[in-house]
């Protein structure tokens, strides 16, 4: 017998032929890139389409708190994309359609984390698994091993259809219209590699929900969202979907727009295909910041968009896959391992009652429960992965779901087994209670590994978890059920817009140094599939965020009226009250008094290099810029209040005014004779900051300046609707934020 010396040999015949071929091609492309025979941009898109991302410091530079040092990677100048060094460790995103994992798949993922990564598996906010610190040359074998377990990383990133997500309770939930999983499963593989999904200008996200009122599917912020619905036609119960398009978070969140209140099940695939074709045809290509479907829908209006989609639908050549899966909708049904049972009264293991209270929910099937495993920040070890796989084999018969709250859900636990199941979790260090409660803080990777992170969202989430865990038992039940979500930047991967308290990483220049901050985002709604988005109230120094959470929580508990939600409470007391808290927490000690404020959570490096030269001009001009930027923030806040009062037109005008003030503050740095006229400010800003690219963000380029120019060109239009005013406020916030960053660069504190 020949001993296999490569994974390709070892797994021969165990991998789907087409998947094996794709991986072979990718491996060849790696070799060609090493020989310089593939252009770096093309290679970057190729690897991204296989879920192989860059990571922080992959440009070969790292700031050590005092200075920027070069990381001398051994492959020298060889790159795997623009400014992305070949040897720099990267992230591998692994698509897990609707989060479903079998025990065998989890075993495989655990092996991969053990051999190629840093001993951690990470669940994302879109039900994927990510492994970090992976070398590009390890990825083909990693992909082969995944493929042998029935997982493909194809189109996990890039301008493609991303992981199709769905409610993790689908099929066992008492509020669902029907089980959406057979639809989600079939659509995920129908769209994977489909010719009509290969030419997008940006990514495309799909989500399913079994009902409208719960948060589980979060369909409101997806490009295509399908909510299960039934309707009786001629005495027959028909299945269909309330179908939404054009939702999205990102820097400027858009709620999805209703496309069809009842899309028959047989039309789900062709309509989605037609939506993809319209997106591919009309979506923006040159400006990534305006390339998501939400901008197409917004630009055309839903009626015109719908007309184009239906026109496209009429042209489609029939495809048997549109409906073939409908012949057997039970193909994705799960068979429980044990018979349903009741939990017998008795003495349970220590900690069981608390865990059961927060982590266990009855299924719609009598005698069974779902049990959630609380995973801090979505992280778990290979040993814990194997332990969960074994628990699935022992108790449920293979059913697990990675959730968007970054936990793992087990289904079909027979109730009498719950204590033994819990003991199994405890033995693996996984017995923590509090899933989806206030201590279970969601976070994107932030500055830990993401190239775009501004502040340490994971560091903040860890600290909040620590501090809240100490007091959570004493908290009022209403407070325990609050959701906190953190993002390291404005791209919203932590989904901060739909939390009770959301935090978004930003930075500020204070006392001549750069200080990590988080914008407090209030008013978002998690229920109703992420029914509404919050708005930023103001920036809080990172080290004061736990105090802000504690103060807000205490006040909510003390002042809430019967049955009042946090969102309703905030609306009742008003954002002015919340803003007072932000203002109180805005002041920090000087660096000499307490340097810890000038570092981020979990990272002792100084957040600023702190070597600002105090030139003769800087002593005067810098404070003036700061005053102007503070004025613009105040104006923004006023805009929010006006929006809350229902004055969309005034809110939009005020948001635009905030942009003008920020632009004016910066431009006076270059032209001290600058007047108050808007035309002059826009023109001078363009000359001094846009044409020179001085205002450009290192990653987003001129995106934020474009917001300003567009607001100028279309002033007076945004206020015609609440949504328009809301979006303008979001864009104004980003513009003002970019002005802060620009100012910091001018002052010399940023590269």
């Amino acid at each position, binding site marked *: 017998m020949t001993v296999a010396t490569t994974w390709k040999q070892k797994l021969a015949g165990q991998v789907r032929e087409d998947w094996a071929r794709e991986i072979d091609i990718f491996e060849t492309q790696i070799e060609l890139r090493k020989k310089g025979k593939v252009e770096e941009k093309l290679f970057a898109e190729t690897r991204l389409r296989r879920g192989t991302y860059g990571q922080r410091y992959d440009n070969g530079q790292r700031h050590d708190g005092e200075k920027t040092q070069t990381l001398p990677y*051994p492959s020298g100048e060889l790159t795997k994309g623009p400014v992305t060094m070949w040897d720099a460790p990267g992230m591998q995103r692994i698509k897990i359609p609707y989060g479903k994992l079998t025990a065998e798949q989890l075993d495989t993922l655990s092996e991969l984390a*053990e051999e190629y990564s840093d001993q951690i598996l990470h669940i994302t906010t879109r039900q994927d698994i990510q492994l970090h610190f992976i070398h590009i040359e390890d990825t083909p074998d990693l992909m082969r091993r995944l493929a042998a377990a029935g997982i493909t990383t194809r189109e996990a990133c890039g301008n493609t259809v991303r992981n199709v997500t769905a409610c993790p309770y689908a099929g066992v939930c008492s509020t669902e219209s029907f089980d959406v999983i057979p639809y989600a499963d079939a659509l995920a593989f129908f769209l994977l590699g489909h010719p009509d999904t290969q030419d997008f200008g940006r990514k495309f996200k799909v989500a399913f929900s079994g009902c409208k009122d719960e948060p589980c599917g979060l369909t409101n912020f997806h490009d295509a969202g399908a909510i299960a619905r039934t309707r009786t036609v001629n005495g027959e119960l028909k299945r269909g979907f309330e179908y939404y398009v054009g939702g999205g978070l990102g820097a400027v969140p858009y709620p999805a727009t209703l496309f069809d209140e009842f899309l028959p099940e047989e039309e789900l695939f062709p309509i989605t295909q037609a939506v993809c074709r319209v997106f591919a045809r009309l979506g923006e290509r040159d400006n990534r910041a305006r390339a998501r479907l939400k901008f197409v829908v917004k630009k055309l209006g839903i009626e015109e968009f719908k007309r184009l989609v239906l026109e496209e639908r009429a042209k489609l050549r029939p495809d048997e896959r549109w409906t073939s899966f409908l012949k057997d909708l039970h193909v994705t049904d799960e068979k429980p391992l044990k018979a349903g049972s009741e939990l017998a009264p008795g003495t349970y293991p220590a900690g069981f009652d608390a865990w059961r209270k927060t982590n266990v929910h009855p299924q719609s099937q009598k005698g069974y429960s779902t049990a959630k495993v609380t995973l801090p920040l979505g992280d778990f070890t290979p040993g814990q992965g194997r332990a969960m796989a074994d628990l699935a084999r022992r108790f449920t018969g293979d059913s697990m779901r990675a959730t968007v709250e970054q936990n793992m859900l087990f289904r079909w636990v027979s109730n009498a087994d719950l204590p033994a199941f819990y003991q199994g979790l405890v033995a693996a260090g996984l017995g923590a209670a509090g899933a989806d409660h206030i201590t279970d803080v969601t976070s994107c990777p932030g500055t830990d590994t993401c190239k775009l992170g501004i502040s340490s969202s994971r560091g903040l989430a860890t600290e909040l978890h620590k501090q809240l865990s100490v007091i959570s038992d004493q908290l009022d039940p209403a407070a325990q059920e609050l959701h906190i979500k953190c993002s390291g930047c404005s791209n919203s991967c932590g989904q901060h817009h739909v939390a009770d308290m959301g935090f978004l990483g930003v930075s500020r220049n204070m006392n001549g140094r750069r200080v990590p901050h988080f914008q407090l985002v209030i008013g978002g709604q998690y229920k109703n599939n992420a029914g509404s988005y919050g708005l930023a109230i103001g920036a809080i120094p990172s080290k004061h965020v736990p105090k802000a959470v504690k103060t807000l929580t205490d006040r909510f508990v003390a002042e809430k009226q019967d049955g009042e939600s946090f969102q309703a409470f905030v609306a009742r007391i008003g954002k002015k009250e919340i803003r007072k808290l932000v203002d109180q927490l805005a002041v920090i000690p000087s660096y000499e008094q307490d340097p810890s404020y000038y570092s981020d959570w979990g990272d002792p490096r100084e957040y600023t290099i702190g070597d600002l030269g105090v030139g003769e001009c800087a002593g005067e001009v810098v404070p003036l810029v700061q005053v102007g930027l503070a004025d613009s923030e105040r104006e923004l806040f006023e805009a929010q209040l006006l929006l809350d009062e229902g004055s969309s037109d005034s809110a939009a005008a005020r948001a635009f005014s905030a942009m003008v003030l920020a632009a004016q503050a910066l431009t006076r740095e270059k032209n001290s004779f600058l007047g108050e006229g808007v035309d002059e400010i826009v023109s001078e800003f363009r000359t001094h900051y846009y044409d020179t690219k001085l205002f450009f963000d290192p990653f987003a380029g001129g995106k934020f300046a474009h917001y300003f120019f567009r607001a100028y060109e279309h002033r007076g239009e945004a206020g015609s609707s609440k949504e328009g005013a809301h979006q303008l406020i979001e864009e104004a916030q980003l513009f003002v934020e970019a002005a802060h960053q620009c100012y910091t660069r001018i002052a010399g504190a940023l590269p």
Partner: protein
Amino acid sequence: MLSERLQLKLYLEPSAHFELEALIPVFHRFIRDQVIKDLLIDVVDYSHVPAGPGVVLIGHAADFYVGALDGAYGLIYSRKRGGPGPDARLEDALRRLINVARLLEQEHGLGWRFKSNELSLRLTDRLHAPNDDGTFAATQAEVVALFGRVYGSDIAVERVPAAKEPLSVRIKASSSPSLEALLEKLGGPPEAAS
């Protein structure tokens, strides 16, 4: 040793004042001041994960972990790629592990002490080192030869029974030399990893 990837761990003496987070600035300083010659990239804090990898110093060729993945705290040297040929891999890993353990013991702010005679070895390469009797026999022989020479005493090697995990062995020396003495025996602080 055929496995290019391996993890060698030295265990910490239990301490009432053990504080894992105190390691984070130390590892950052290791990068900033290039305290060890390897290409070091970043520090990651996984202390929130129970029985997890703890605090990780990410490098290009190898990582260093201080965590409790197997339930007991210790320092792991985790070789990921490159390195010397099969005959020198284990010795190279031991040298790099002892070197960093010694540096950590010198950090007065940590107040850590390692048990110099208790280690474990995991072969995180299921292709070249499957968890079977053959791999164990070869590993045992190599460990006894190397550690016997370096420690100058009897070496006990015990296989950790866990079928799905990579092959893992516990190593116990009957003597407990100082880390300095061990490093000297191994040729002193290593050069940069390739």
